[in-house]
């Protein structure tokens, strides 16, 4: 890692829906400055992967985040305080986002975002 002059943004994708997960990974891997280093179905696994892989950005499905307790989301944060969480609203209802913003999560990305907007949201989160 230290040998690379411009390090890529390392992303962990936490997404319970297989179709959305595959789509997100396919889209992100097309950007040369972004690298998906791990994928997870649920938050418990995500906390372990965050600790082991040290991602820069963690994308979490809004519906999944809404179902999890603050403690579970806190565990992900505690696994790596430097990681930034990006909420992905893909199949989730619009109302779930409102309840989550303002907690530990600052950024979100809407489901009808295009390729460039999704990558931009990742880059913004990593800053």
């Amino acid at each position, binding site marked *: 890692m230290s040998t690379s002059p411009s390090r890529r943004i390392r992303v962990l994708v936490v997404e*319970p*829906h*297989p*179709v*959305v*997960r*595959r*789509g*997100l*990974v*396919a*889209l992100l891997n097309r950007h040369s400055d972004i690298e998906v280093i791990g994928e997870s179905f649920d938050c418990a696994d995500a906390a372990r992967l965050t600790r082991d892989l040290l991602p820069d950005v963690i994308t979490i499905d809004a519906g999944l985040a809404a179902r999890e307790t603050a403690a579970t989301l806190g565990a992900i944060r505690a696994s790596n305080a430097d990681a930034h969480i990006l909420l992905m609203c*893909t*199949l989730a209802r619009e109302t779930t986002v409102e309840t989550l913003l303002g907690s530990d999560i600052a950024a979100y990305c809407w*489901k*009808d*975002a*295009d*390729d460039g907007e*999704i990558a931009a949201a990742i880059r913004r989160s990593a800053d």
Partner: protein
Amino acid sequence: MDQSPIRLLVVDDHLIVREGLVSILNRQPGMIVAATAGDGRDAVEKYFDISPDVVLMDLNLPIMDGWASMAAIRARDPNARIVAISSFGGDQDIQRALRSGASGYLLKDSDAEEIVAAVRSVNKGLRYVSPEPAAALAAGIAYEPLSARECQVLELVARGHSNKEIGAALALSDSTVKWHITAILSKLRVDDRTAAVTLAIERGILHL
């Protein structure tokens, strides 16, 4: 071994979902995504451009919805093989899709294995409804369907209108509106208007 691959048209307005479906299907041996479309009208055009073996079609689409798009495709090609894939799980959504020409029905949270199984079945000319929508269909059969007029009344109820306002909007007397509402509650087997609206949305009778 030398069989030609199943050529697919993937239709979804959301890029992430479309990419996910393409990635899943293209990784399968014997399957290839020949084209994608982002709305229902585009889907009809692409269908007749490339003549795919199977279409994977979202229902909630801009410009022309998935039900109308399937009907347009089947009107010109009655043998078109279409799998509907939607986040709508209400029995009325599923029934409408099957009536519009879908041979298969999947929910959007399906895994790769299920999507591939549906495509293979429908490609063989079989029907494929995954367990959750199948259960919703089975439960929905027990209900007597609402008439077109009852659906109109219920939609106005859902929008918060009083009986008097509904009567004015549909040019019906107060007692006729009441009579329709009684029939709606009885057919949906609920006790009040709120429960009727909730159930109607859940079953896909209403989309607000």
